[in-house]
């Protein structure tokens, strides 16, 4: 059923009791053309683009938990593309291009809101670094511009730009085209659109092994519900990517860290945009429900626990209260953690692997949500054509051997 004002009206007449199921819970078949491991936004999106753009519909998405229950459902929904290097600008801007019009394409409201992302500069170093980013972005055709402290205050009135603030604001970089989207909707929308094209979505079915033939190529996956064959496997397993890759005998340049977020009690609209402060690890926006959505920094140690330490949250909230004094008396409702897979250069790995038929989309670290449609599209392309798209070609695994890193870690000097 196509969602529209008319279908909403028609279903209102029947008391909203006759809406059809959005996607069926599939039972695994013996084999598929392509198996995607991980039913987050990236994996479901890849299945959708495989079916939609490349005509490969005999696809299964296998998920150990529930659909969208990993980092897709745990992030702070920030979307932006103001990265320094040419390769990054292309891959993240490709994603923003796809965010535009995604709701219409998949007939599902992902609530993409271009409310603008403001990145605060607190020191001379920040100012110089951000202006370099802005110039690099403009050369790459990526929207980004400089605001003085007063202009930033006019754009985002809750900011404290007082000269004697603990974290003085010397200015900010504004990407107006950036913003937020509804994270769950992205997973649900892709799932519904992919299922409508014939993709099987198999939940509660952990992959326990990857089977390889005598020639080394993949033959399928062992799962909790038996063996499922496929000549092509795309792994989009975020924090657990190292674990899945080890099943194919591969060691990856990844480390998995806890990353936390939290939301406040809901209040009336007060934050008109997203504000990020990399220097003090504070990321904040307001959801359409009215909650302040706040992102914290990563814990320092490798962990798969999906929870982090309180002192990380305390540091972030201390910064938020300094930058936005009016939030000091607000209460926080929920905190949670996800597991983010981080590469040495803080850029993703998206492409082929040394194992024939095995493709990977990992290493998005603390910023994978923004890339969802782009990563999904490029993973689908790479699987369908058995070669990377020019946009994701630089994000190969071989760069760690050849030395051609895309060092956004050095560019940003912090997690991002």
């Amino acid at each position: 059923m196509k969602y529209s004002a008319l279908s909403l009206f028609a279903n209102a007449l029947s008391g909203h009791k006759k809406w059809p199921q959005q996607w069926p819970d599939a039972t695994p078949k013996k084999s598929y053309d392509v198996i995607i491991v991980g039913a987050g936004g990236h994996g479901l999106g890849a299945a959708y683009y495989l079916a939609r753009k490349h005509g490969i519909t005999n696809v299964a998405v296998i998920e150990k938990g529930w659909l969208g229950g990993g980092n897709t459902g745990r992030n702070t929904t920030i979307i932006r593309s103001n990265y320094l290097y040419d390769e990054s600008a292309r891959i993240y801007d490709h994603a923003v291009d796809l965010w535009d019009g995604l709701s219409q394409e998949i007939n599902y409201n992902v609530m993409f809101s271009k409310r603008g992302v403001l990145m605060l500069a607190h020191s001379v170093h920040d100012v110089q670094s951000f202006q370099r980013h802005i110039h690099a972005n403009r050369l790459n055709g990526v929207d980004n511009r400089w605001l003085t402290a007063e202009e930033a205050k006019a754009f985002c009135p809750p900011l404290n730009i007082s000269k004697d603030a603990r974290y003085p604001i010397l200015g900010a970089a504004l990407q107006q085209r950036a913003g937020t989207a509804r994270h769950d909707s992205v997973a649900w929308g892709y799932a519904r659109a992919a299922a409508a094209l014939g993709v099987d979505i198999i939940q509660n079915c952990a992959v326990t092994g990857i089977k390889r033939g005598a020639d080394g190529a993949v033959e399928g996956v062992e799962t909790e519900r038996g063996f499922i064959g496929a000549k092509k496997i795309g792994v989009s397993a975020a924090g657990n990517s190292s674990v899945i890759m080890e099943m194919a005998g591969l060691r990856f340049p990844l480390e998995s860290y806890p990353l936390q977020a939290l939301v406040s009690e809901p209040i009336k609209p007060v934050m008109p945009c997203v504000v990020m402060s990399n220097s003090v690890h504070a990321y904040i926006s307001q959801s359409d429900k009215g909650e302040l959505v706040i992102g914290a920094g990563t814990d320092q140690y490798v962990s798969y626990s999906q929870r982090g330490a309180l002192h990380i949250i305390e540091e972030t909230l201390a910064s938020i209260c300094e930058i936005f004094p009016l939030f000091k008396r607000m209460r926080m409702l929920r905190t949670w953690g996800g597991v983010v897979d981080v590469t040495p250069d803080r850029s993703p790995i998206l492409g082929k692997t040394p194992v024939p038929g095995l493709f990977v989309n990992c290493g998005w670290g603390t910023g994978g949500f923004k890339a969802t449609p782009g990563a999904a599209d490029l993973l689908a392309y790479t699987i369908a054509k058995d070669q990377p798209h020019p946009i994701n070609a630089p994000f190969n695994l071989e760069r760690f051997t050849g030395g051609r890193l895309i060092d956004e870690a050095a560019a940003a000097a912090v997690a991002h």
Partner: protein
Amino acid sequence: MLLIRCPYCQEERPEIEFSYAGEAHIARPLNPDDLSDESWAEYLFIRSNRRGLHYERWLHAHGCAQFFNALRDTVSDKFETTYKIGEARPQVKK
């Protein structure tokens, strides 16, 4: 917050006194001139990132300022043991 036992101070102290220092037992190559690109990549970038028991280094930054090793479960975050640099790594019971 983790509670970590420093093997030098012989005390369990809160995590904020410590800095994480990455995977343990990765030896710096003794023959850097002869190393292939693959071996450099393995040394510099490849990590076991184990889901389960993980050998790792910590620095008691705001204590004795010494590095030590630890064996910790990365799913429960529970420390199995901590031990001094130079000591043999404790074997993992299968």
